[in-house]
């Protein structure tokens, strides 16, 4: 039962992307692409990557037809100054998970090939250091929808 949910999500995502399940020990959860104001041609994609395998894995590449350039990025917060930098890989330790989230790791989409609308599914391919790939379709979401709601 413990593995059923991530497996189903992975299967569904793979099915959406029209591809077979590449590696069952790695799974991606709740991916999304941030909806940006009209005219803005850069955005980020966020998700949770889970590694149920016994080996540490590294996400080494991401690709998408939705953008001219796709990169792995992180943010460094140096005394309140946020510095965005490209990273060669994003580590996903064995039996652990890595969250790609605002202010931290993200898949950066530079120079979108077409404007994105809320609800669009953005195909993204993730490639890991063992050569395995995961294809997913990340829905475009408003920043609001992706953040916790305030207490009233």
């Amino acid at each position, binding site marked *: 039962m413990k593995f059923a949910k991530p497996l189903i999500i992975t299967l569904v995502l793979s099915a959406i992307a029209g591809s077979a399940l590449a590696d069952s020990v790695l799974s991606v959860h709740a991916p999304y692409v*941030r909806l940006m104001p009209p005219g803005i041609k850069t955005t980020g994609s966020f998700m949770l990557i889970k590694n149920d395998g016994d080996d540490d894995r590294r996400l080494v590449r991401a690709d998408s037809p939705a953008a001219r350039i796709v990169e792995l990025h992180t943010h460094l*917060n140096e005394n309140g100054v*946020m510095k965005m930098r*490209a990273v060669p890989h994003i580590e996903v330790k064995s039996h652990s998970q890595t969250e790609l989230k605002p202010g931290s790791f993200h898949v950066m989409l530079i120079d979108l090939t077409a404007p994105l609308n809320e609800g669009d599914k953005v195909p993204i391919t993730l490639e890991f250091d063992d050569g395995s790939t995961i294809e997913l379709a990340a829905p475009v979401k408003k920043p609001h929808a992706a953040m916790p709601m305030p207490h009233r």
Partner: protein
Amino acid sequence: MSRQRYWIAAGICLSMLLVWLAFFWEPDIGTPTGHPGPGTLRPAGQPMGGDFTLDSPDGKLALQDYRGKVVLLYFGYTFCPDVCPTSLSALGQAFTALTPEELAQVQGVFVSVDPERDTQEVLSVYAPFFHPRIVGATGTPARVAEVARRYGVSYMKQKPVDDRPYTVDHSSFTYLIDREGRLAALLPHGAPVADIVLQIRRLLGDKGKPS
């Protein structure tokens, strides 16, 4: 803060000041008129704040025109893929959580530190996307630098890699300005929406009187 970090921070501040003096100091621009209110959250040695005038899609934007309102000020740039949208979304969500009466007494201002790319046309779409109560503003590089200096904002255009658009490292604080135009508090990047709401209500409750 460790001793090493303190010295690094001090060094950065000093070099920024020197850079600013070298490039942007315009003695006739006037001195900061803002003064810290008593009992604020602002630690010593932090930014002064104060009035400024920039250009917005609706024409001149002067902080002093918002007297009587609580102003939330954020510095960033529209090519910013993550940090700025996160902060502005939080601001928008905080505004959404306010009552209509409260919202009428609040204004969000997004100051672009990238006037080279952030034209008024871009700003006119970008800022209200997060909340209609947020207005975009920018100005000449010298004027933006002057406003940034008053608020202790640092930003540095990064050398672009190959044909990628350049990015700008920048401080990501949200500045709360009380009804009298005084810098009252700084919220760090990633401050929960509930905290922003709390700070706004605190300043609205002050009715602009010195506490």
